[in-house]
């Protein structure tokens, strides 16, 4: 059961790699593969929702000897999120006409990496899947093959290689200090580890994920890459790949390093604050749509970090919720940002309202969750900060939108297919805003699957 989504994506990627992805049938085959992966993940999710976390020892080896796959609600939420964003980007590209034969295959492999890393319960296996998705991303960034894309790809590969190396170092430090690679066993051992090596490995893993997230001050690569790549790739990077960062921070932070996470809370909140303010201010007067969105992405991850810093069930739930909303928003905005036509314009407007936190677009739920956490923890300064960030996001989103309306008027209309794809995505976002309960419930369950959140 657990292996099904992974198997589907793996075989799908393999088959697509041999086929020519620029041909329509092959491209639609990739869409079918990704869809069936999503469906099987959903089926898995239903089981997990009803019966609790599942695990699968690969090869049947007992705990520790082999690799154990473990799926809880947190994994399901992140897997579905990443797969969903990938599907939207893939359909968008397929409808527009795929420009490179390997594109569908690489998207599927990225789906594999993102699914695998949330499903695995083994730290080193996490790294392997992490690399599968990173290599896919390296290949994807150069998609489009203009000088700009190559520059972006080079920046991306350089910076993220550093992130990967940091992560690898962190993993081996954990192995050396605990003697295990299995996350459950590591978690049991971690309290016995001296503070010093523990915080060092926690720090370096934090840096690794911050680089992936594009958190201030590790964000300098992000605008160049997001503005340099094709819209669908930017959507994938910010909507799917960046989830690695959030998931990693939650999984490693709350699951493996809860003690270190609490110690680092002030640093997290400080960095989150810096990210929010910095991203928002940079985004304010940028003209290119993608650049505004890139800086907005930097700002938005700040909220996630603050939620993590506050911690507790509510804090983690807010972090997960914010990630889901932010990823879908960014995917929508990047995809619709390059389109023309009234449908695409409407979709973009919905995305803009969502980022600004205006209901019924779903974004307000994220702000609401953060406010709630801030109020419950009695931290007026944080509430004020979130308010300020929200106000600034209002300003930059609608300055951008104001400029864009003229742009949309001036140009013709994009192909209908692409517009329909973004409208569907926009409808999903609206749907979440209108009927948020399923998502809220899922997110709450996801946060509760973290051991730290279960402590009353």
């Amino acid at each position, binding site marked *: 059961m657990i292996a099904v989504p992974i198997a589907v994506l793996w075989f799908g990627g393999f088959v697509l790699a041999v086929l020519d992805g620029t041909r329509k049938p092959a491209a639609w085959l990739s869409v079918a593969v990704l869809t069936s992966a999503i469906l099987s993940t959903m089926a898995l999710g239903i089981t997990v929702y009803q019966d609790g976390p599942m695990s699968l020892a*690969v090869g049947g*080896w007992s705990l*520790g*000897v*082999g*690799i154990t796959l473990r799926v809880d609600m947190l994994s399901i939420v992140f897997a579905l999120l990443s797969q969903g964003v990938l599907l939207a980007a893939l359909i968008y590209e397929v409808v527009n006409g795929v420009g*490179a*034969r*390997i594109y569908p*295959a*690489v998207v599927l*492999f990225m789906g594999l990496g993102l699914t695998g890393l949330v499903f695995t319960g083994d730290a080193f*296996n996490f790294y*392997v899947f992490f690399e599968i998705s990173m*290599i896919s991303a390296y290949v994807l960034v150069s998609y489009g093959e203009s000088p700009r894309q190559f520059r972006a790809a080079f*920046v991306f590969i*350089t910076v993220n290689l*550093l992130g990967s190396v940091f992560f690898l*170092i962190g993993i081996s*430090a954990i192995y*050396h200090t605990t*003697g*295990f*690679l299995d996350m459950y066993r590591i978690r049991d051992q971690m309290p016995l580890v*001296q503070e*010093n*090596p523990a*915080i*060092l490995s926690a*720090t370096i893993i934090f*840096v690794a994920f911050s680089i992936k997230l594009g958190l201030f001050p590790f964000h*300098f*690569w992000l605008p160049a890459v997001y503005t340099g790549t094709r819209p669908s790739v930017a959507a994938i990077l910010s909507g799917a790949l960046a989830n690695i960062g959030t998931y990693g921070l939650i999984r490693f932070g709350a699951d493996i390093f809860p003690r270190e996470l609490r110690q680092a809370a002030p640093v997290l909140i400080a960095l989150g604050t810096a990210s929010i303010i910095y991203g928002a201010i*940079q985004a*304010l*007067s*940028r003209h290119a749509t993608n650049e505004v969105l890139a800086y907005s992405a930097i700002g938005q991850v700040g909220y996630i970090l603050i939620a993590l810093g506050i911690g507790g069930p509510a804090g983690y739930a807010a972090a997960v919720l914010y990630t889901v909303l932010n990823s879908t928003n960014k995917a929508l905005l990047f995809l619709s940002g390059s389109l023309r036509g009234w449908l695409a314009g409407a979709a973009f407007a919905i995305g803009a309202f969502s980022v*600004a*936190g*205006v*209901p019924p677009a779903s974004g*307000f739920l994220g702000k609401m969750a953060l*406010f*709630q956490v801030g*109020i*419950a923890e009695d931290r007026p300064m944080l*509430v004020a900060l979130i*308010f300020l960030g929200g*106000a600034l996001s*209002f*300003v930059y989103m*609608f*300055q951008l939108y104001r400029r864009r*309306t*003229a742009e949309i*008027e001036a140009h013709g209309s994009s192909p209908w297919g692409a517009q329909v794809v973004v409208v569907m995505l926009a409808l999903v976002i609206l749907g979440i805003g209108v*009927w*948020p*309960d399923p998502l*809220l419930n899922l997110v709450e369950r996801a946060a509760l699957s973290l051991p730290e959140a279960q402590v009353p």
Partner: protein
Amino acid sequence: MMNPAMLLLVAAFAAPLVVSLLGAIRHSWVPRGAILMTGLAFAAAVWTCIQDDASVNVPWAPTWSMNFSLTLDGLAKMYALLATGIGFFVVLYASKYLALHLHHDHRLLEEQTRFFGFLLLFMASMVGLVMAQDLILIFVFWDLTAIASYFLIGFDRAEEESRSSAQMALLVTGITAIFVLLGALALFQIYGTFALPEIIIASNGGRNTGIAVGLIVLGALAKSAQVPMHFWLPRAMAAPTPVSAYLHSAAMVAAGVFLIGRVYPLVAQYDWMLDALLVIGFASMAVGGIIALTRRVLKQILAYSTISQYGYVVAMFGLGGEKGVAGATFYVLAHALVKSALFMTAGAVTEATGKKNLPDVGGLMRRMPLLAAGSGMAAAGLIALPLTIGFFKDELFFAAAYERGMTLAVMSVVGASLTLAYILRFWRQTFMGVLRTEPEPISGYLVWPVVVLGIASVVGGLWTVPAIWIVDRAASVSADAPIHLHIAYHLDARHENVMAIATWVAGLLIYLTRRIWWPAALGVAHLGSYFGPARLYYAGMRGLNQLSDSVHRIEVRDLRSRVATILMPAGLLVGLAVIVTPNSTSSFAVGALGRDDIPLITMLVASVVSAFVVIVVRDHFRLAISLSSVGFSLAGVYAFMGAPDVTLVALVVETVLSMFMIGMLVLMPRPILRFETEVRAERRYLRRDAIVAVVAAGMAFFVAWGALSRPSPSTEVIDSQTVLTAAVHGKDIVTVILADFRGFDTLGEVTVIALTLLGVISLLRTGRLR
């Protein structure tokens, strides 16, 4: 039978949906469809109005204790009637107006769909808002009105003026809406529910509740365009006239005072809040009234009038008590009727004459008698002449103010006389005097709504029963106590009558002596535009953009700096971690160094030396060679660490990698690879590079040292792997781990290889496998 509350909501929200669908089929049906749907919604509102109060309460998001709860109570009934009723007339008016408007701007008639869609959404969200009982639901509908108004104000998208006005309106009302949300969440924190009725029952008058309610009221005041957050409203005149008519009377701005009315039982517990409302209300009255006197554009006069008129309402809420609440509620009703009529008058005049400014029109009485009569009745209502509904709104106001003492009474008379002066100026100069511009004939659709609303204002003044019936029920909700309004004409010298007469006299005086005080009033207006909040808004926006530009100028754009900006903070964070954690002597161990380690140390030294050789070599081919020698020495290190498998792989991988590198170098012409000529320019970077490298090295060093100093924990895993190796017919444990125990990793690893191959051949051969 369907629940009346639900029915009304469905009827209201069906309107925008149906109209959008109609627009998709055939846009010429849109205006008629809109009239029909609004008519239905109005009918539903009237029908539900005479029903008993009804509620709907279904779980919406139980996870967060949010309920979809609507109650059709007296307050909701009144505002729903206004929203759908005025909405009906506005749509009627717009059905002809918009075609003309689009025609003037040479735009496609198809855009009607967009206009009516958002106008009806505006109406529907107003209807939803007035019935909502859950604070979050209120917030949702609240922002829905902001969205609708944003697109309506910015309807003339081609004009920068229109777009920036829409942006301003959205920013002011949208950002302040977050206060409403915050207030709701704060109340939830205290009372554990979002249900407003429950909160009102449980409310304790505590400090935190006060802050929460204050936040909500702040949002409401911004929406009602009260000083100092009033500046967006005059700019919102960029919208087509029907929108202005609607926005000022029964939607948007009314939503603000509605919300105050909705939470009034909470507000009334705090005297400081009431006093604040009083101050803000009178300030808005004064500012709006004075500036309205100086405006030239027809719609601007009315816009500032709205600020001032809602100032009355807010002030009456501030006065409090039965009279204040009842008065405020009544005022909204009366004002909605007449203000929408006046706006439509302005629009009709502009359409007929093509002029927007007051000085350019005049003497229209004879050419457009019907319009003059209709708007005359409406104007009479606004300046509270007897026999109109407006008379009572002022009377209630005077009564409430008088109760609080002489000062307030005088202030209210002055305020009301300002109203009289600017409305007199507006109406008289439009319809009396010399004919300035010959009007063209206009459609009856632009005139009749004005007339009907004007007549309604007079009828309301003659037959007060329906108004009293509505207002009693509405005010009872706000006051949280039964209220019975007693209004009638009294021909005696009671203080309300005296104050009313004083108002008329003073107003007339102000109007007649306008040449004398004109410069002063203009001065106030100018002062406002130079030091007022609008200025602050612009300065703030400009400042933010400038700040953004200057921050962007120092943004890192160079890959080298990007690398540096990752390594430096990472190093600093690790340094911070080292500093804050307690360092015992056992944290960092030197470790034993035996004779057996000598070969290993030698190879380590060799690899480090060759790594530094890589730094210093100039030639790229030598670089590749020295790089591979690093790999080979490391292979040696691995060999001495008892890892023959790793050694083998490291050797072959290093060989192939060198081949790759040299292959790539061969592909590039020598001049491309020549950097020596610019070595001098590089020199200034040397120090920075060295510092960053040292910091990075320090980070790696502390992490490595810190981790490695930890004595090895249990070797449980590798022990069992060793035992199991024999069981699976293996001898080389590493190979067995790779192919079996952790074969999943290997599968991932080879997938990485296959993926890289895809990437490489896509970069070099555009993805063809053969």
